[in-house]
């Protein structure tokens, strides 16, 4: 079966690496969109550690060698070329838009942890409880914006998720042009310095997994 690693804007350079099951990569050329695939000699792919890491490795190599790449999610296969072609054809407009969006960009991920005492909410009355929870929620949202907004301003696109209930107050992804990655990193460092009480991790650059559909933020 034809296992899909990524879609790419033509002309696509298949990197010289092996994929799952140590199989070589191939490019399925379909006009405006290329697909980087591997012919696997099996009918099922389990999400084993090895397979997950192989998939990630291949996608990273493809993104390194090509200017506009949409990573495919793990585990999708097609019986043959025509089946793949048909699936791509169904969504070609959306996919070419997405390729356009991610061209020349990498994804950076941000996670922010605010320490919590873990205690249950202490409140003297029901009203007090609600007020406390609301204040907490507002504080969290303000904090998330303080960090997210300046970073989003440097990115071509951004997604974010704010969880007032948990310690993980902000999870975000930013689509950043490769030539401005250093500026972005510098801003993260600056924001981090301004919030010494928070745990902040910025990882990347990643291939643009979170922006692989034309609507960023769609899971």
């Amino acid at each position, binding site marked *: *079966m034809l*296992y*899909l690693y990524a*879609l790419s804007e033509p002309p696509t350079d298949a990197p010289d690496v092996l994929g799952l099951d140590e199989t070589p990569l191939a490019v399925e050329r379909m006009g405006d969109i290329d697909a980087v695939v591997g012919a696997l000699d099996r*009918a*099922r*792919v389990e*999400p*084993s*550690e*090895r397979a*997950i*890491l192989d*998939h*990630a490795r291949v*996608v990273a190599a493809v993104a390194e060698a090509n200017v506009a790449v*949409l*990573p*495919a*999610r*793990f*585990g*999708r*296969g*097609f*019986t043959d070329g025509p*089946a*793949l072609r048909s*699936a*791509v054809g*169904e*969504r070609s407009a959306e*996919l070419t838009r*997405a390729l356009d969006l991610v061209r020349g960009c990498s994804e950076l*991920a941000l*996670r922010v942890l605010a320490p919590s005492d873990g205690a249950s909410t202490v409140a003297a009355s029901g009203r007090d409880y609600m007020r406390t929870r609301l204040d907490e929620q507002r504080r969290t949202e303000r904090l998330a914006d303080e960090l997210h907004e300046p970073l989003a301003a440097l990115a071509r696109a951004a997604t974010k998720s704010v969880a007032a209930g948990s310690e993980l107050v902000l999870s975000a992804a930013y689509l950043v042009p490769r030539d401005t990655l250093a500026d972005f990193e510098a801003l993260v460092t600056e924001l981090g310095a301004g919030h010494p009480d928070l745990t902040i*991790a910025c*990882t990347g650059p*990643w291939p643009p*997994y*979170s922006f*692989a*559909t034309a609507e960023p933020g769609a*899971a």
Partner: protein
Amino acid sequence: MSEHLPAAQQDVTLLELVDRVLNKGVVLTGDITLSVADVDLVYVGLRVLLASVATLEQGEAGGA
């Protein structure tokens, strides 16, 4: 040879990677549904994953 980063840093990076590969990325309607269904409850231990990474790195160092 790869240097040994503090475990926490490796963990965070690995978790981000696995999250992307499994939960993000474009999904085309494949005529073969290969991977776990969205409600599958398979659990992969992080320790096992890290052990695999170590094995892979050894393999790479020994190979080309």
